[in-house]
């Protein structure tokens, strides 16, 4: 396939992407198969993120695609007889901070949690320890400084989060730093809104609720339809994130069950239960015994 054709096809895949495993994997595999055209295909990913007419929902999905693409490229290349040498990883990695800001533009932070999950996966694939940032993420409700709290009282907007060009940190770390700032921004905005915008108590029509047909609707704000679509998408995303919890990799060409599976997915996976967990388990079992007893006609 020549570069033009590959790029056209790739763009079609990107425009019709949805967060199901199939769609994401199909697109990622297409990109990897056409790794020779990385110089054309990689900018296409950036183009779609830069396009202001593309919905933020789609951009969130594109970020998930980046997560899947890095993971697939890594797994496929790491294979012993692989013909691939880690395509896209370098390009995507260095563009991460800039990509992140495209998915979380201005004060629109509703992709925050999806970005967090994907960034965590990416860091795991690239074997970068980000536990420190994950902790900060969970604590950021306490992270606002005294000064910032005063600014909320004064109804001042939170400063725009921008890229620090001077930073010499690893791009993944930079991305995490930006994400933590975004998390703070989002929290700040929420507090400010609660404080300065009185809640509406009167009945609202649906149109008013979603600012339909008013100039009030700021750029990038979601319509009702988009919100419903997003709920559907997030369900898919959630399903996908669960999948990584249960997938069992078995040796190829194995017949029957293998000791490897026992080792990897049972013996090493299960630890002796803590006292509390054991208590909880046996309480559940005790409760279940009632169901069991009810199932037989005779007393057991």
């Amino acid at each position: 396939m020549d570069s033009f054709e590959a790029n056209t096809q790739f763009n079609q895949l990107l425009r019709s992407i949805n967060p199901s495993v199939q769609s994401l994997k199909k697109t990622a595999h297409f990109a990897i198969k056409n790794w020779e055209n990385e110089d054309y295909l990689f900018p296409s990913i950036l183009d779609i993120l830069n396009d202001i007419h593309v919905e933020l929902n789609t951009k969130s999905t594109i970020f998930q695609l980046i997560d899947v693409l890095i993971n697939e490229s890594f797994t496929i290349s790491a294979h012993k007889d692989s013909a691939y040498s880690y395509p896209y990883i370098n390009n995507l990695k260095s563009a991460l901070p800039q990509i992140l800001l495209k998915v979380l533009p201005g004060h629109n932070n509703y992709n925050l949690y999806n970005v967090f999950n994907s960034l965590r996966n990416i860091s795991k694939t690239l074997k970068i320890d980000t536990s420190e940032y994950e902790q900060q993420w969970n604590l950021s409700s306490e992270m606002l400084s005294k000064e910032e709290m005063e600014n909320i009282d004064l109804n001042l907007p939170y400063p725009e989060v921008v890229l620090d060009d001077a930073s010499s940190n690893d791009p993944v770390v930079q991305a995490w730093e930006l994400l933590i700032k975004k998390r703070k921004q989002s929290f700040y905005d929420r507090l400010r809104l609660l404080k300065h915008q009185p809640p509406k108590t009167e009945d609202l029509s649906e149109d008013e609720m979603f600012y339909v047909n008013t100039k009030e609707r700021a750029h990038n704000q979601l319509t009702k339809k988009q919100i419903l679509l997003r709920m559907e998408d997030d369900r898919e995303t959630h399903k996908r994130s669960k999948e990584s919890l249960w997938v069992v990799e078995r040796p190829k060409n194995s017949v029957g069950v293998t000791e490897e599976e026992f080792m990897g997915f049972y013996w090493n996976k299960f630890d002796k239960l803590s006292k509390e967990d054991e208590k909880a388990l046996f309480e559940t079992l005790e409760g279940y015994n009632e169901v069991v007893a009810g199932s037989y006609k005779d007393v057991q």
Partner: protein
Amino acid sequence: MEKTSSLSISRPYYSPKELSYLHSKTIADSKKVIYNQRKHQVYQYLFQIIKVLKLPLKVLNTSMIYYQKFYLFNIFEEEFEDFSNIEKSMELDPFNVSLASLFLACKNEDCIKKLRDILLVANKIKDNQIEENFIELQRKIILGLEFKLLQILQFNFNNQISFSTDSLVLQFCKKINLNYKYSLFCWLVNFDLMLTPIGLTLPPHCIALAIIIISLNFKPNDLKTRELSSGVNENILDSLNPKDFKCPEKLVNEGILYILDFYIHQYNLSILNNYLPQINEDLNKEQIFKFMNLKSKFNNLRTLNEHSIDGNLLKQDESLSLFDYSISSKGTSRFINKRKRLLEEID
């Protein structure tokens, strides 16, 4: 008068006598052999699908329970001769029943796969031509079978609760500090049992404990493993009390005898056979004799109580008759999962 409504109570477990009564109604004597053959094939088939889809073994376990449960209330027949009614013969095809079981088991075990994806893999394994029309029809049939299955299960998803036998086996092993070799033995036994109807009679925790007691008595020190193991503390067995595991003792005993019987009759087909040497070290005889010895040792155990179950009473029990799916399409079928509620309703 035709019945227009039904009320049934969810029963996750049936006593052995009830099972054979139900089977006598659904599987004709002439079909018993083929039923068992088919079950083995279905099991291999599902195992292959599970490998391609990378699903955990607990899904296979649940699928096999559902599959076997289906044939407690539906007649096992394969109408392959009658090509005139494709839909009907597809519905009777045990392989399609097994796919419906797998589909539902995926949902119940929270490993969700689209039916389409399952079918693509399943048809590839069987070398079926994958035509869009065929898959569409197959989808329709399997969704219909799934609905039947749901009614048989009384829509009760509590059956497997939040744990499966394989994880319970491991948790119990770790609780009593059982070594690697013995634990692997337990895990293999659990895998062998997926082929049997033991899951229709006993709850997971009692099966898990029965497996562990068997491993402690069997002392599988000659099991072929790559990992080295530490020795096993001989006192574990004496200090093992079913009450500590919240297992009703009779149910555990029932499990022990069931498992021993299974290996006495089917050892050669079992996966354990691949892992144990042909000759048992202690006895200097074939492994099967070890199971027979244990059987005679345990023969006096008090097992599941079935006093009130006799042939005449079984015949009067409507809940043990073939499932009448037409009631729900003409009138209403209701399902209850607590016996107490049922008794209140009847009063």
